[in-house]
């Protein structure tokens, strides 16, 4: 219960914050150590395609187009403000990622949606039927991973 309240409190707090700082060229914002990575993939004829968002401990972030694990292109990059970084850390802690199962959800027979978060060396994945949005996944009772993903992607302007 506490976890849910904490998770729900985060977005309200985040709404009071300023939008992300204007994006800087990523080479001007060194990533350094990666704090957390969010990957949302759609299965299909070409395998799994989607976007991978990485947030550095210093607030730099990148959004890449990925295809079957390979980076196809850099879609955008930027830097979060210190407040936004703090908010991100709060959201991460509230989600208690380490307590989540490594893999959960209800996959479709083919072409599932896969949402993964990598944090401190662990990757947690939730699968959902074809075409499911992150918002839809987050609305479910067991959707804490998706809710965290939604918050982080909101911070990075996705």
């Amino acid at each position, binding site marked *: 219960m506490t976890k849910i309240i904490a998770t729900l409190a985060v977005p309200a707090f985040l709404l009071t914050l300023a939008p992300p700082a204007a994006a800087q060229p990523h080479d001007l914002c060194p990533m350094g150590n990666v704090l957390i990575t969010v990957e949302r993939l*759609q*299965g*299909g*004829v*070409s*395998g799994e*395609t989607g976007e991978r968002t990485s947030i550095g401990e210093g607030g730099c972030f990148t959004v890449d*187009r990925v*295809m*079957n694990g390979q980076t*196809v*292109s850099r879609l955008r990059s930027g830097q979060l403000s210190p407040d936004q970084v703090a908010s991100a850390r709060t959201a991460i802690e509230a989600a208690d990622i380490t307590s989540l199962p490594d893999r959960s959800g209800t996959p*479709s*027979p*083919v*072409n599932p949606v896969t949402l993964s978060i990598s944090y401190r060396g662990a990757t947690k994945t939730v699968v959902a*039927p*074809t*075409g499911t949005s992150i918002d839809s996944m987050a609305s479910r009772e067991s959707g804490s991973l998706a809710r965290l993903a939604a918050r982080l992607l909101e911070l990075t302007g996705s």
Partner: protein
Amino acid sequence: MPTKPDAKNLLTYRFALRLVSTVLLCTLPIAATAQQQRSPLAESAPQGVQYSSDVVVSESFRFFAGGRDLPVRGDAGTLMSRLSVPATAARDLGLALTPGLEIGPGHTVQLFGTQPGARAGLAQPATAKLITLHPIAYRGVPLAPGSDIMSVATATGKLLVVRERNLPQTVDGSIPTVERDIARRVAYEAGRTHAMPADAAAKAARLEVFVDRSANGRLAWRVRVESESLVAPWARDIWVAAIGDPVVLASRELIYHGHNGHVAATAFPASPLGGTAALDLDAAFVNRTGSDGGQVTTGPDGRYAFPTGTGSATIAVGVSGPNSNVDNVAGNEISASATGSDTAPINLSLNASTAEELAQTSAFVFVNRAHAFAQDVLPAGALAPVPTRVNINDTCNAFWSTAAGSLNFFRAGDGCVNTAYADIVMHEYGHGIDDALGGILDHGYSEGFGDAMALIATRQSCVGRDFQGAGTCLRQATDVFLWPPNTSEPHAVGRRYNGFVWQLITNLQAVYTPDAAFELARQLVLGAAVANPASIPDAVRLSFIVDDDDGDLTTCSPRQQILAAAADSRHIPRPPDCTPRPTAGRSIAPVVYFLFGQEDMRPPIVPPIFVRSTVRTPR
């Protein structure tokens, strides 16, 4: 055979003979006589009428004021029989036919046999009447429809009217000098002047006497030229002179439809980088506003026809039909409309030019072709229609949604083409087929099966031509990936099956014509799919079972060794080697086309579906 009148009616007979001759010669209204007062109807009775479709009619009426007594009185049943019998009818009606003309058995109906309910004093009692129509022949050769004799009599036995219609004064003969086949060829050529479709053929031909405008009877071959299409019917009867020069005497349309035309669409016949072409738009709803309104569906050749309705109407078509309903996520759906009448074809074209438009037309065209490709194995009503979502704001992928039962294609971008094109449509539709045939049991098989559908349908070995740019290939089926897979990624696992299928096609082509080889592959692969395989080895084994013809896999079925070689090429487990049966003359792949009950070697049931058109503009 001319029939003589009774002696007591001789005067009437002579008069009638003179009168009819006069009418036929001059096509003038009949004259009034002392015995037969002119009827008011005669003033308006048509004397020389040309109906549509070249049916020429001259006709004469004889009205008997007050009615002329017939030999039978007061017995309607007996009178009906008498009027129907040629000999008695000819005598009773006072006919004087040209030598050689013969009246045929009549068809008699009775009208007003029972009195309609009426308010007392407000209606006169109805008179029961007998109406009889007789066909006519000349020395055994029937006259063309429209030449006949009609009579109206009271049920109590009074003759009121006789009509002689389109009877010849002369006939050029009853023995043809023009051969039947020549007449059929002439008729076929004549059909070309009436927008005859390519699949029409000259069918039956029989002799008739056709009566021309001058009341000359011409012995003719009546040839039926028709297309068997149920969705774009076309048929005409054409009379070709059977004596002398085989000229066309008349042509009569046999299909009575209203607005019609053809619908085409510009689409990608192959990949989005391979140019566009104008393709027949099959299975598209065509809507009509005005006239009788309504909706019809285009046929395989893109043609449509409304069965009724005339005059001005507006015809509209889009990317919607019984098999696919395209949803352009990025905006409105492409459509076309035109206004015209039923007297000329109203042709429409979905002139797609932008990438978003071409994605719509290409998806629609190939979903329809995919449906036709698999129609004989799909449960009734399955995948009809499939929501087909195109230009989704994502890139480099496409997917089948089991939950929504929809096909989903992404826009171009990130180095990838728009994914709504032949290879990808067929792959995703393959998932739909797998889903419809008992549900998807195995991801790897389903991916491989989707690829197999694309391979067989497009008749080339790349699934995803130009997917990531010109010359790229998403999955090349000639690549060899062996079983068991060293990956769990479904598409990678599926490459074992697409490789098996491509090798099967290749092996079949060594023995069969290309058309037969692809059709056999289609049936072997779809036949296995019907049994809902649980894995790739299961699907391969099921193809052996589908091919088996004696319930014994240890004896070689028609293509068992070909299947075995294909399975071995990817190390996929299969039934043990078979032993050829000692049938005389049987080779490694006997020419027996057995699947789904066909025991003879036939042309393929499903034509190559993606090779219909010519690339128009390289892009």
